[in-house]
Structure formats: C-alpha cells, structure tokens
C-alpha cells in the first residue's frame, strides 16, 4: 500500500503475552559494570522466556550489594529485603505460608558463607523449593572491600592484603547437604547463566547457583581470583548447558552418549553435554570430586554439577493441603465447638 501511515511493529511478547518490560525493575544503584547487574538482566530474560507470571514470584534477599538487586528486576513481584544472612528463614516461612509461589532468593558471599552459613546449610538440608542465587564476588562491597569467606586462599585485596584462610565452596556444601540442583556460573557468561536460570525455574526443590560476579570497585584487580580477567582465564565448564522448555518442541537431536538429558518437574528438558571425562550430574561423589580437583588445578569449574529430580521438596515432605496455608478460610483452620468440648471433657 502506498500510504504514509507508520505502523508500529508489534512488541515481542512471551507465551503469556507479556513483554520484557513487564519483567523489569527499578533503576540499579549498583556500580557500572557490577556483575550483579548482568545477573539481574539474565533473571529478567529467564523469567520472561519461561513465561512466568510476575505476580506468582516472591523475591527474597538478605543484606549487601547483592541483596539490593531484587529492587532492579521484576517490580510486579512482592519482594522482601530481610536481615543479613537470614533470608533462608524468611523464604522458608514465606513458602510455608504460600507454597504455590515461585520463590527467588538473592544472596551474596558474605551473606551466605559467613553470617548466614548456619541458615544456608539448613536450607540446603530441607530442599525448600527456592532458587537460591549467590552473587559471589569474594568481598564485602557495602562496607568497602573486606574479604568474604568465599575468597580464595592467596587472593589479594586492593590494599595488598593476602587472604590466608581457605575458601568455603558453597557448591560442595550444597551438594553434600541435600540441595537438588547445584551449579556455578559466571555473570559474564550470558548463555550458560541464562540456560541454568531457566532450568532452575523448571526445578522443584532447592536450586543453589553460585554465580561469580566480579566487584569492579573492590575486587577486579590483578591478584584477585574473583576478577573478570581471572574468570575469563580460568573458567572451566564441566558441561555445555542446554535447556528446552516444556512448551517448546523438543524434537532436537542429541547424542545420548555425550549428553545427559534430565526431565525436569514441569516437563522441560535440561541437556548437559559433557566436556569432562567421568562427568555424571546425578552422582554427588563425582560432582564433589570434580569440584575439588578443579580447585586444586586453580580453575573455576562452572556448569550444572548435580541434579536430583526425585527427592521430595520440603513443602511436599510436610504433606500440606493444596491451597496456600495463608489463604485457608476459618472453617478449615478453627476446629469446631464440639472438638473443644471433647478436649475439655478429657481434662476434667
């Protein structure tokens, strides 16, 4: 048609008819180049691409730079910026109150591995259906650059201070303690992180993702093992992470000899193409061994280390009614007058 009408192209939408815009949050106040911002972007992409209704998500965090980031994505979801290191307990309570929600927890390495290590290990034991992301930069940013407990032995601060204590490996801990989806990624590795986040959304149980996320202000210099440069030089993927969501055609060929195909709870498929010998993502012992060996070599192993789709989640274990406990009407939560009388009679 030879007309001059300008047609606006239809904005791209997901399977719910929502745009990426509907998954955005407030403007970030973190430093330019902070790894955390890249992670927020991937979270937005993953939720958008998976077609998760924003109102069905709860965002929870502790205290620190990382824990501020839930303000920078998914404004249409309820969010709770709680207490330093204690987000796991708040998330546990919130999920018990409403088990039908998708819960996303964002923590940092100080929040998780020091002040919150007690709650972290018990969260892993319970296999609470929570996606737990550690935005791991090895330092306390908000208090201006002290080492955290995930800083590697020998890593150097800007001030020249050398870390003389061994790092806590959150992935090894999580695997040992019962988390059912454990992986490590790098904020600079868009493709891998996005695939892992999408698989995390499809999983029912605790997902523990340790995402190395360099702190451009306090820990991105020569001598740091959590810098962009160090990661670019030392990242060693255990597998290539592929993901086919349940609502897409899965007729894509893969070689069963070299690729693990894991059917997720919602019917999606996680496809892990082996890059390492003797790699088996359903065996904890090999997973922990691979992590420890990589550490010995001075390499940072990434990818999905361990997946177990059979173990019941904490909310399943408690055998709760189908509806959220928070929304049960009085008729179902207050026993009858007759029951009180029966109890009273027994006490007479």
């Amino acid at each position, binding site marked *: 048609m030879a007309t001059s009408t300008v047609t606006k192209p239809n904005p791209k939408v997901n399977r719910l008819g929502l745009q990426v815009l509907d998954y955005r949050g407030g403007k970030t106040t973190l430093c330019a180049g902070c790894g955390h911002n890249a992670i927020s972007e991937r979270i937005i992409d993953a939720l958008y691409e998976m077609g998760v209704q924003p109102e069905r998500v709860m965002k929870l965090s502790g205290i620190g730079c990382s824990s501020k980031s839930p303000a920078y994505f998914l404004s249409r979801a309820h*969010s709770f*910026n709680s207490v330093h290191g*204690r987000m796991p*307990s*708040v998330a546990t*309570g919130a999920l018990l109150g409403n088990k039908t*929600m998708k819960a996303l927890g964002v923590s940092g390495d100080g929040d998780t591995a020091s002040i919150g290590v007690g709650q972290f290990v018990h969260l892993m034991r319970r296999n609470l259906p929570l996606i737990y992301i550690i935005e791991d930069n090895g330092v306390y940013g908000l208090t201006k650059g002290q080492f955290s407990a995930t800083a590697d032995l020998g890593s150097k601060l800007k001030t020249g201070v050398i870390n003389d204590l061994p790092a806590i490996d959150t992935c090894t801990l999580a695997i040992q303690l019962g988390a059912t989806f454990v992986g490590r990624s790098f904020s600079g590795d868009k493709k891998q992180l996005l695939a892992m986040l999408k698989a995390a959304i499809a999983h029912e149980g605790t997902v523990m993702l340790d995402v190395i996320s360099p702190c451009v202000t306090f820990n991105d210099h020569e001598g740091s093992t959590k810098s962009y440069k160090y990661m670019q030089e030392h990242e060693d993927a255990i597998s290539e992470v592929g993901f086919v969501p349940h609502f897409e055609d899965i007729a894509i060929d893969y070689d069963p000899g070299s690729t693990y195909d894991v059917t997720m709870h919602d019917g999606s498929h996680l496809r892990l193409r082996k890059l390492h010998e003797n790699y088996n993502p359903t065996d904890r012992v090999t997973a922990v061994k691979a992590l420890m060996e990589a550490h010995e070599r001075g390499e940072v192993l990434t990818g999905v280390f361990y997946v177990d789709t059979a173990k019941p989640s904490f909310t399943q274990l408690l055998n709760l009614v189908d509806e959220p*406990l928070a929304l049960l009407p009085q008729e179902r939560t207050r026993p009858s007058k007759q029951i009180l009388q029966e109890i*009273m009679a027994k006490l007479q």
Partner: protein
Amino acid sequence: MATGDVALGNAGVAAAQPAPGTNDDVSGASRKPVINDFSIQVATVNGSGSQSANNVLLRAIFGMGIPVSGKNLFPSNIAGLPTWYTIRASKHGYIARKKEIDILVAMNAETAKDDILSLPAGAVAIYEDSLDLKQYRNDVVCYPIPFDKLTATVCPEAKLRKLVKNMVYVGVLAKLISLDMKAVETALRRQFAKKQKASDLNWAAVEAGYHYASESLTKHDPFVLERMHATDGKIIIDGNAAAALGAMFAGVTVVTWYPITPSSSLVEQLIDYLKKYRVEPDGKATFAVVQAEDELAAIGMVLGAGWAGARSMTATSGPGISLMAEFAGLGYFAELPGVIFDIQRVGPSTGLPTRTAQADLLSIAYLSHGDTKHVMLLPGSVKECFEFAQAAFDLTEQLQTPVFVLSDLDLGMNNWMSEPFEYPEKPLNRGKVLSAEDLTRMNGFARYKDVDGDAIPYRTLPGTDHPQASYFTRGSGHNEKALYTERPDDYQNLMERLNRKFETARMLVPKPVIVQTGKSKIGLIAFGTSDFAIMESRDQLKKEYGVEVDYLRVRAFPFTSDVHDFVASHDHVYIVEQNRDGQMLSLLKLDLPAEDAVKLRSVRHFNGLPIDARSVTDALVLQEEI
C-alpha cells in the same frame, strides 16, 4: 527501709531453725484438725518416675472436689538430681505456692536432712525408715516407712522398683490424710490408661502403702482431707497446653520452634493437637511445623510466613528472645505480623533455667535496634493462656506488628485447675488485607499510608493477581509507597506513624482486671502468675491486719488508660513482680505522669520459686508500716 523497697531474693528456701518443744507439742491429740488446707512436698530424684505418683496425688485430691495445685521444682538435668513437687490443697481455693510445707515426703536420701530441717514446727515428715530423720527434729511428726521392703513385696522385678516405690508413698499418704482410695484408683487408672500391666503394678504399690499405714501407723498430726464439691466441672491443664489449644483455635498455620525449656512442651502439645484435629480427610495438613536450626531462624520463618499472610508463631524462652532481637526490630519497622510466646524462666542456660521468673519484660518491651517497642500480652491463668493466644493472633494481624505473649515456667509447665475454656464466638480478625478486586477499585495502593487515621496501613499478600499488588519490604528506609528513601521527612513520618499505631494498640489490647473497694488508698499492681499470691495476700492483709487494698492486674503492654486512673486514685501503689530490677515498675514509671510515678513502690520476688502470698503480705506490712 529508707528506700521503701523490699527485695525478697532469699525468701522461701531458708532452713528454718527447729523450734523448741517436745514430741507432746506436736501430737495430734492437742491440735485442732486442719481440714483441706495444707501443703505436701515430695522430695525425690529426677528420673525416678515420681511425676506419675505426684500426678495421681494431685488428680485424686481434685477428684475429691478439693481445690488443689501442683508445682514441680526440677533441675536442669535428665536423671539423678534432686526434684521437689509441691501439692497444695486449699478449701479457700488458693492455688499459689504456699511458703510453708506441712507434710514432707522425703524420698531423696541426699537432700533428706535439709528437707526436714526446712520444715516449720508441727509439720509432718514421711521417709524411708533407714534415714532416721527423727534425730534432726523433735518438733516434727515423723512417720518412718520401710519403703524398700514394701516395694519388694509387690514388685518382684528389681529394675522396676525405683519407679514403683513412689506409688507406695501415695498409699501411705492416702491413709494418713484420708485421701479417698476410690479417687486415687480413678486417678491412677487414668494416668496409666494405656498400660494395663503398669497400672496394676502401681495400684498394688499404692495398696501396699495404704495397708502398711493402716496396720502400723498411729496418726499424730492434724492434716486431713474431706470431700468437697469445689472442683465440679473444672479442668486441670498446664499453661503451655492451654496456649497450644488457643493457637489451634486461632487457626495457626505455620509453627516454628527451637527446643528450649520451659517452652518446648507448648509446641510439642500443639503438634499433638494439630495432628489430631487439623489433618483433613485426605490426610493433608492445614498446618506446617518446622523445628528450626535456632531461634533466629524460628522468628525469621514466623515473619516470612506472616508476610505471606499465614498465621504464624513460635515459642521460646529468655535466651531465645535475645537471639530474636534483630528480627523483632525488622518486624516492627517493616510491619510484619507474627506471634512469639515467651515462657519466661531464670536467665542464662546454665544454673536455674528450670526455675520460674517474670524477668523478660523490659527486654521484650523494647527488643531490638533503633526506636522499637512491642505489644505484650500477659496471661495470668491457664484460661488466659488459651484466650490471649487467640487475641495475639488477631492483634498481630490487625496491628501488623509482632505480638509477644509472656507466660512463665510456673504457669506454662505446672498443672492448674480452671473453668473449662469457652469456644471463641468471634470470627478471626485477619486485619487490613487488600484483594485484587480492591486494587482494581482503588487503582493501586500505598503500602505504608495511613488511610483510616488509626496509623494502620493496608497490605497485600504475595500472589495477589494484580499488576499493582506488589510492594518492596525493607527496614527503615521506605516512604508511604514502600519506595526506597533516606529523606529525613519520610523517616520521621514513618516513626511518628509507628508511634501512633502503638497508641491504637493501647486501645485494642486486653484491659486490666481491677478489684476496687472504693475506700482504700493503697493499691497493688501485679501481672501474670503473681495473681494467685496477690488474691491470697489481700485476704491475709484484711484478716490479719484489717487492711483492705485495691488491686489491678495488668494484662498487656502498652498500658491502657485504666492503669493511669488506678495509680492516680491511690496514695501508694505497690508493684509486685517476680524479678530483681522492678521491670514492670520501670515500664510504668516511663508511662505515668511524674506526679503519679512517685507513688509507686516495689515488691520483688526472685529466688526461682513461684511467688507466695506470705512474702507479699510481709513486704507490704513492712513498707506500709502497718
């Protein structure tokens, strides 16, 4: 005393000096019978199964229609340390601890000498005859009993004898104080309802004691029981079970806890009730219980669940409250509901954690960082444990702030007689929660805006299906729309609104109970388990000194205006409490106008034992110079 203060820290257990006198002085012939008005103390070793025997005694006296109370004084230990159980029968219905012991059953060789030395003249001692306690007191009526021999005759199995032996003293006592054997058997069969063999064995032990006493003892003391009808229709329950029932009938859905004496039995009994009455026909639960890794996690879970809209609670004691401090502050600032039961006890975990106190008042009132203050409910009976548990859940959701219920070990772990509990007729008050439809009608909302003028804002729950439902929960830095702010005016407005909300709380919490003569210029203020001792002390003051005192029992913090009026209308007001520092006194001084604050005087009881009437009466007489 110049300060006008009397502290009763060492009252209660001091060994009395044996009074001069002869055996003739204590013989029954010269003394008037004492009917339905005495105390029995059983001294045993913990882990010896004496609890069953003591429950049977308590229940049997109750079964005879006589008002009765029982108190367990136990050590922080599993087996082998001294334990005392005190039973008081009172025709007047006094159920506070009686300071003096009238009948001692000394089953613990290790403490037997101290136990008999602490008796007042004229008391009774029952003991294993080999202990030869008579040598220490000639002014006490002694009944040596061959417990071991009697036990052996009914219990061939040597390893069970330690447990069965306690039932022998039940039989001996039954004979001596005319305890109805029918009532004893009913109580015993109830105690061992599910264990026929144990039931029979224990009953044989009771009978052995009874027969021995019938054949071999001559009564030389005045203490006897007579049937009454004062317990008809009443129940016996401990405060923790009562609070658990209250929580269940309040519709609690999320329960978190970390075991700590004396609160554990609250949650354990709640779990039993919930499993029985809150599982649906398909086997699924309308509740979740989590044993947390510590008290920090327990309260974190409570607040997370409250935020998500569930009725959530935890139960703890002093050290747990200390650990909950940080979250309590967040709960206050972020306006989160959640109920915290504090079953108070003596402070740190080593020493006297199994003894009672009312000493967490100040720490809870202002628990946490920054300007915080919390709503506290102060139940004074098992019935109020039931009722205030329900009130707490309504208040916490209405006010959107953590609510603390302060019971204590005496109330929580001891058995109390009570009227049966009444079924709650009022529907649950779930507070100001907006639905998706509300949001459409209102075109969104501001989470922290005072819309109604009561300083209580509206909230939405996660999962509300509306694009404007969400908000961001954080601590101090938020404006009315829950957006991040560090502006001075936003912060000040928030703090002032929270203060106004506390004023709203003042009008919603349970009002005090006031007993006023209209003539007295002396007032008493107490709270919690001190109530029973105060009621009795008022009678003592009237009967023995001709002095009438008015009484106000505080049932909540913040204080209602009735408390101000009460102080204003009296010349002297004694604050009676079970702690060293006069914590209620301090809270009142902060709340009252200066001209009224100077009227306050203090009576404090803090030896780990439940407060008794005599201690209150003596302190008041001394300070008032009656």
